[in-house]
């Protein structure tokens, strides 16, 4: 299955890309597995944006521009987009 990850703000700056397509062997995966794969691909995300336990406190994830998710067990389905951005929307 494929998941498109879109990065915004600091996560984008750390990874150096605005989006990346990830492949997973099963027909669904989890937020935690996507984050682990991201860190493998972009080690600069570790520690600041992504911790071992999941997203760092200042960051959030959004499925397909719809629901926000933080639970590492949250399901991500084939073809979905996962947006990683700052949880602080203040401006």
């Amino acid at each position, binding site marked *: 299955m494929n998941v498109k990850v879109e990065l915004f703000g600091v996560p984008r700056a750390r990874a150096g890309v605005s989006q990346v397509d990830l492949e997973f062997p099963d027909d669904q995966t989890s937020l935690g597995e996507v984050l682990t794969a991201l860190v493998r691909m972009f080690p600069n995300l570790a520690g600041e944006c992504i911790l071992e336990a999941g997203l760092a406190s200042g960051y959030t994830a959004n499925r397909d521009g719809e629901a926000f998710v933080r639970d590492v067990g949250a399901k991500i389905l084939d073809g979905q987009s996962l*947006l990683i951005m700052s949880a602080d929307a203040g401006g």
Partner: protein
Amino acid sequence: MPSLHGYHGGYLRIDVSNGRVEFVQLSAAVLRRYLGGVGLGVHLMLRERAAECEALSAAAPLAFVFSPLVGGPLTTSAKFAVVHKSPLTDRLNDSLASSGFAISGKKTGADALVLHGAAASLSVLVLDGRRAVLEPATELAGVSAREAEAALLKKYGRDFSAAVIGPAGERGVRYATISHSGRHAGRGGAGAVLGAKNIKAVLVRGERRCTWSNPSSLTALAKELSVKSWGPATAKYRELGTASNLLAFNRLGALPTRNFQAGSFAGAVDLSPETLEADRKKTRQSCVACTIGCEHIYPVKAQNSGDAPNDKPNDTVRLEYENLFALGPLCGVRDADSVLAASRLCDELGIDTVSAGGTIAFAMECVERQLLDAPWLRFGDGSAVLKALELIGRREGLGDQLAAGSRRLAERIGQGALEFAPQVKGLEIPGYEPRALQTMALGFAVGSRGADHNRSGAYEADFSEQADRRALSPKSAPLAVETEDRAALIDSLILCKFLRGVFTDFHSEIAHILQNTTGWEISPDELRETARRIVSAKKLFNQQAGWSPSEDTLPQRFLQTPLSDDPRASLSASSLQAAIVAYNQTRGWSPEGWLPRRAVDEIMADANE
């Protein structure tokens, strides 16, 4: 009065018609119940009966309010609030800013400066300690705030700090700002109130310092907070600034575009900080006493509005999300140089970028609908935005109508224009599309100063698992209340909201800071109660000024039409009303939003002490 730590124990009441100064004592009980900043400011407005005054009359008071933390070692604490009745909304207005003015102003020996009256001609109020002198300022008429500040500090000395208005404040533009060190107390028209008093600038200096209850512990807490402020919770602000919202909001369909006709903008990438900094040399700055450094300064290229060329090619401008959104996507403008130049022009004139952009975008839609005869004012035309800003600054032609804000312009136009004027209570809506962020929509509707992303942080709920951002429910009301209460505390202490992510246990940590500053044994629960009191006091001011429940709403556009580019982003009048009732009940107010008698009596007893 027993000695106070963190406070001087009173405010200076200054009559700017004659320079007379009176020190008015404030009890420790009142200071503890309203803290400082916005909280103390609303108390002072109730005490001074400001709700009864016409906002631009000589009698209307305007307060510069400091806080117990000003002058102390805590990062971001060099802040002050400007509180008054807004000429834009005719309701309470409180705007905040950071600069040395807070530190110098508090050193005059007062916790606030309350200005009354009006000078006979354009003047500078020079406050040296508790002594006031009015000096003529006719040579500064029409001069930008930046140039006036530089001239005044050169003349009076750099040990003074200045709060200055630009040409827009002098001419009564209802969303004029008060500027200081290039920053603005921006929303709600404080600059017009100062201008109506014929005061071009307030200069302050002094030597009176407050003591701290436990200086060594406070210093240790300050070091700890500074270290946290360098961490990941503030990386967004340091690295990209508030403008980093732009692309994320655009992706979520939450970026107001073409006067809120859409939630995404095709030119967003062109305006993003990632694009801007790729081909422009950006610098960074911090406010006084701040360790975050969120200011991202960009060069401004010369632009020509068709009327007056920008002849200052070396100018720079601070780029914030709000000026970027309001002068860019909201007006359909994707040319970054135009947006930077427009933002710079707002600084020069001394006007609020959100209200300026909102009013211009509204006028553009009126032109599109043939409700307004100004064929040059078209969505997407950056030079038209510049021309409109210049006309606003001079209050010439159409600019005179635009200077009154979108609500007054809509009322003048009639023909249903009010339905798509982008405002609540007269204050233009900031860069959060209400249909895509519906807890924020609730925050906008009930906000005491109108549509406001700084007094309500309800968007935090929309960016979480706690709320469905496109399906407002009464269950969201406590979330909106919580963020509004937290903002009331932060704005009264005063600290920068960009620090909010660094606290692990906000109320306990703030209580600890206040204990070491003031010596008061303050519990987290007392702080929660204080926040609720401050929000209620704001509501009470508005009720005294003529508020009615029908004001707590959004323009019909948001309640009747889904977003054109996201049909699921739809908000009904009934769901908003149900959430408003839940909000009011969560606050302990009547379902319509009236304060209970007991709360009114308690707050007015403080005001009448």
